[in-house]
C-alpha cells in the first residue's frame, strides 16, 4: 500500500488546518478596525485611515448565504479539474461581524437546488485536488 498522502493547504496562510473547526485567516487594521480577506498587511485600504499595523484574525466560521451558483463545465487552468469533471456549487456568504461577503466552493456535492439566500452556512476544509504525493486542501462552505 502506498503511504497516505500528506494533507497540505493549497495556499499558505489563508486558513487554519484545524480539521474539526477550520477558520479563515484575515487581518484587521489596528487603527480603524476594518477587516481584510485575503490578508492586507502593508497599508489600510480605508481611504480615511493612515493605518499600517494589522493583527491577524480568524474570521467568523458561520454566515448567511448571499447568493450561489455553480460550475457545470470544468474551469480552465490554473484550476486543477478532475477527470471526469464533477460540477460543484460556489457560495457567497455574508459574515455578520466582519460585514463582508466571502466566496467559497460548496462542499459535499450540495447543489444549487439545495440552497437558498439567507441560509446559514459554515466553513469546512476539503480537498481541492490531489497529485501523487499530496492532497491539497482549501476552505469550502456547506449548509450548517
Amino acid at each position, binding site marked *: 500500500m502506498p503511504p497516505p498522502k500528506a494533507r497540505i493547504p493549497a495556499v499558505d496562510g489563508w486558513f487554519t488546518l484545524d480539521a474539526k473547526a477550520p477558520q479563515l485567516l484575515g487581518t484587521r487594521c489596528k487603527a480603524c478596525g*476594518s477587516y481584510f480577506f*485575503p490578508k492586507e498587511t502593508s497599508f489600510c485600504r480605508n481611504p480615511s485611515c493612515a493605518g499600517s499595523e494589522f493583527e491577524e484574525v480568524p474570521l467568523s466560521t458561520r454566515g448567511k448565504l448571499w447568493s450561489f*451558483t455553480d460550475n457545470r463545465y470544468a474551469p480552465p487552468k490554473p484550476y486543477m479539474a478532475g477527470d471526469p469533471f464533477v460540477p460543484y456549487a460556489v457560495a457567497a456568504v455574508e459574515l455578520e461581524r466582519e460585514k463582508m461577503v466571502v466566496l467559497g466552493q460548496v462542499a459535499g456535492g450540495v447543489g444549487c437546488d439545495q440552497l437558498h439566500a439567507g441560509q446559514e452556512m459554515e466553513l469546512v476544509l476539503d480537498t481541492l485536488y490531489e497529485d501523487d504525493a499530496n492532497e491539497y486542501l482549501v476552505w469550502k462552505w456547506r449548509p450548517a
Partner: protein
Amino acid sequence: MSSKEVAVLGAGMHPWGKWGRNFVEYGVHAARAALADAGLAWTDVQFVAGGDTMRNGYPGYVAAATFAQALGWSGAQVASTYGACATGAQAIDLARARILAGLCDVALVVGADTTPKGFFAPTGGERKADPDWQRFHLLGATNPIYFGLYARRRMEVYGATPRDFAQVKVKNSRHGFSNPNARYKKLYTIEEVMGSPIVSDPLRLLDICATSDGGAAVVLTSMDFARKRATKPVRIAAVSTVTPRYPNTVIEMPNFATDSAVGVAAPDVPFRDSIARGAYEQAGIGPEDVSLAEVYDLSTALELDWYENIGLCKPGDAEKLLRDGVTTLGGRQPVNTSGGLGCFGEAIPAQAISQLCELTWQLRGQAGERQVKNAKVGVAVNQGLFGHGSAVLAKV
C-alpha cells in the same frame, strides 16, 4: 457646458466574429472606416489613443503605437491604456482630455482584440500573488461564476425568473439582427434560450456572452474643428471612468471577498450606480433624458441590473420595465439597440468604443432598421474588473 464637449466626427468598426486573424487588422480596418466617415486623412490625426489587449503579446500592450505603425508612421503622438472591459472608455477619455486641454484638434481612438476560444483564463505562468490567478486556482471562479451569483441574487431578492433572462436575449437578438457589425444574427425564441445548457446556474449558454474578435474606432475632434465640417455633430458630453468608493460591498471579479463595512459604512451610492451617475452629473442631465442606452450585458441578467444602475427604474423594477417593452426598440428607452454583447460577444478593448459607435449612428439617424426615433441623448455603460467604471454620454 459646451466648453467641456468634444465631437465624434467619425465612427467605424470591423465586424465582430471569430475570424482568427491578427487584432491589428481589425483595428486598422475600423480606424480607416472611422477616418472615412469623418472625411479626414490618417495624416490629419495628431493624437492616437489605443486600447490595449492582454492576449496578443507585446503589440497588444502598446496598442496605440501598433496601430500607428500599421497605418503608417506619421509622427502622431500616442498613448496606450488598459482598464479591462473599461479600456475603450479610458482611451476615449484620454483623447477627450487632450482635445479639451487644447493640445490637439483631431484624435483617433482605436481598440481591437483577437480572443481565444472558451472561458477567459488568466494570462499564462504560475503567478501565485495575482488575484486573477488565485481565483481560478482556488475557486475555479470563472467570469460566469460571478454573473451567476448576480443573476441568482436577482431571483432571490426581486423574484426574477429564468424566463425574464431569456426575454433579454430574445429582445437583443431582434435588435442586432440587422446590424452589419454583429456576430450573431439569429432570432432566438424563449424556448431556445431556456433549452440551452446551463453553464453557471441559473445562467444558460445563451444567457452568457461569447468572446469575439472585433475592432472599433472613433475620430474625436474639438467642437470648433467639427463645426467647420459638420452641421450638427454628435457630441460627447461626459465620460466617467470612476473607481469604487470604499467599502465596495458587492462581490466583484476577481475578488474572493468584498470590502468590510466595519471601519466605514457602505457608501450611499454603490459602485455600479456611481458609474452612470458620474456621467449624468458631468453632463447636467438625468436618466429621464436618455433616449437610448448601451449597457454591458455580459449576461442577460446583468442587463436587468444595469437598468437600475443607470437609473431607468428603481431597484427591483427592471423585470417590469423589460416585460412592458420599455427597453425594446419602439419602447420609451430602448436598451442595447446594437444587439449588445449577446449579439456581439466581447472583444474587450474595442467594446466601449463600439458602444460609442452605436450611439453615434443612432444620434445621427443612421442606424437603419434599428433606428430609435428622435434620439437625442445616448448613454453607454460598462465595467472592467479590478474596479473600472465606464460611462460615455453622447448627445446631438
